[in-house]
């Protein structure tokens, strides 16, 4: 059932690709650059965040006033604030599109599980950084979110009280709370770059940036949104008050809608359960790779006497599984006699895709269970089986 659903979603995703390719030139298809778009929005968030940070005062008395000063008195301050706010939404949308696209097109298992896990961490940390951004304004919404989060954390068995103190920077809301929120906003945002390194480290050709046309379009859209629907604060937080309602931003604050329907602890439990499920998705299908016809070919092997050190396989391997090392001895073939480098396969990274075999014009790589003679034998066997039908 689950497998059939995935296949249906895969088919729908590929059909959508085809449709977009009819409208736009293929290399402009934004669905191919969802990761790059997320990266673009993250960069916009960092740049606009630095500009906002210059004016922000992390204190109970000064936070709201500093945000209002930025919004109403700094030239284009309202635009920068709006760009920061809408770029956060766009960033999350791009991440989710990237996640679903890779999920539905089956690019999350086997050798890609490290990208999936790092991506899940990126999603969680991004969501948390986005959420703490709402607290920094210190308006009524921030106050209510702080209260609901504190209740949710308190409900965690054993470590609830400690989590609450870590979150608030002390036993309750005090002068140390806003600096703590600022740390909880900027700290995770900086961690994102470490996670991005993890996300990219196993990929040879990651598309880390969208085409210029999408950079222009995204920036333009953010400017339009920031100007047409300027980001605004609610009424300032009042010490001791318990505000009732707030404007919901569905991208980041959906757990709080749940928290108000049920109990904050249940909403937190649901978020944790979703995250855990997300982490184990690559391991949910019980078929072994062999059952799926994968990893049955043996990892690629370098035929050393033929390798010329041309580096074509090194550049083509999408999994960073081939390294070039100084050649300790000359090759045997005429083309390889004067080589300077030799290709080496990192077994733990090879997924047996065969791309390197196609890349090598010198027959210097092979899959041990898919040698020329095996392929010919299979063809002969197939031809033999087909022969009676043909005759």
């Amino acid at each position: 059932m689950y497998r059939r659903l995935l296949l249906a979603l895969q088919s729908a995703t590929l059909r959508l690709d085809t449709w977009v390719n009819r409208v736009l030139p293929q290399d402009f298809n934004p669905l191919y650059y969802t990761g790059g778009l997320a990266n673009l929005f993250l960069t916009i968030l960092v740049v606009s965040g630095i500009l906002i940070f210059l004016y922000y005062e992390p204190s109970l008395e000064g936070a709201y006033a500093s945000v209002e000063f930025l919004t109403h008195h700094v030239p284009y301050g309202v635009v920068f604030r709006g760009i920061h706010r809408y770029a956060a939404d766009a960033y999350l949308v791009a991440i989710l599109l990237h996640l679903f696209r890779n999920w539905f097109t089956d690019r999350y298992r086997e050798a890609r599980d490290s990208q999936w896990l790092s991506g899940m961490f990126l999603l969680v940390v991004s969501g948390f950084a986005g959420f703490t951004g709402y607290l920094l304004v210190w308006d009524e919404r921030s106050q209510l979110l702080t209260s609901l989060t504190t209740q949710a954390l308190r409900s965690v068995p054993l470590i609830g009280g400690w989590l609450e103190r870590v979150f608030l920077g002390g036993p309750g809301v005090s002068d140390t709370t806003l600096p703590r929120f600022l740390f909880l906003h900027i700290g995770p945002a900086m961690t994102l770059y470490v996670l991005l390194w993890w996300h990219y480290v196993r990929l040879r050709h990651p598309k880390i940036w969208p085409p210029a046309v999408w950079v222009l379009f995204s920036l333009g859209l953010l400017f339009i949104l920031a100007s047409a629907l300027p980001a605004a604060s609610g009424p300032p937080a009042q010490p001791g008050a318990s505000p009732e309602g707030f404007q919901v931003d569905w991208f980041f604050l959906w757990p709080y809608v749940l928290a108000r329907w049920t109990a904050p602890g249940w909403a937190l439990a649901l978020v944790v359960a979703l995250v855990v499920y997300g982490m184990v998705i690559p391991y949910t299908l019980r078929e072994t790779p062999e059952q799926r016809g994968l990893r049955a070919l043996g990892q690629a092997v370098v035929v050393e006497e033929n390798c010329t050190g041309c580096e074509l396989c090194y550049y083509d391997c999408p999994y960073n599984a081939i390294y070039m090392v100084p050649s300790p001895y000359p090759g045997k073939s005429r083309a390889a006699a004067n080589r300077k480098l030799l290709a080496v396969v990192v077994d733990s990274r090879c997924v047996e895709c065969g791309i390197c075999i196609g890349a090598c014009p010198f027959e210097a790589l092979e899959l041990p269970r898919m040698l020329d003679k095996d392929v010919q034998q299979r063809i002969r066997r197939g031809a033999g089986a087909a022969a009676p039908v043909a005759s």
Partner: protein
Amino acid sequence: MTEDRSSWYVALAGFLAVLALACVALMVYGEWFDRRLVASGAMGVLLVLYAAIVVLFRKARLTAEE
């Protein structure tokens, strides 16, 4: 047929370029008369128009694949 469509794309790009010029005028107006949301909105539209012009140029085969 393709040629006809190319000229149509170029004509549309030309029209968008005129709109982009209007946006530049709006940006100057917004900055001059302290209506900065108008200026930044016009800047946003200008960027979107520029992106559209790049796509139209490609569809008209005036630019090649990157």
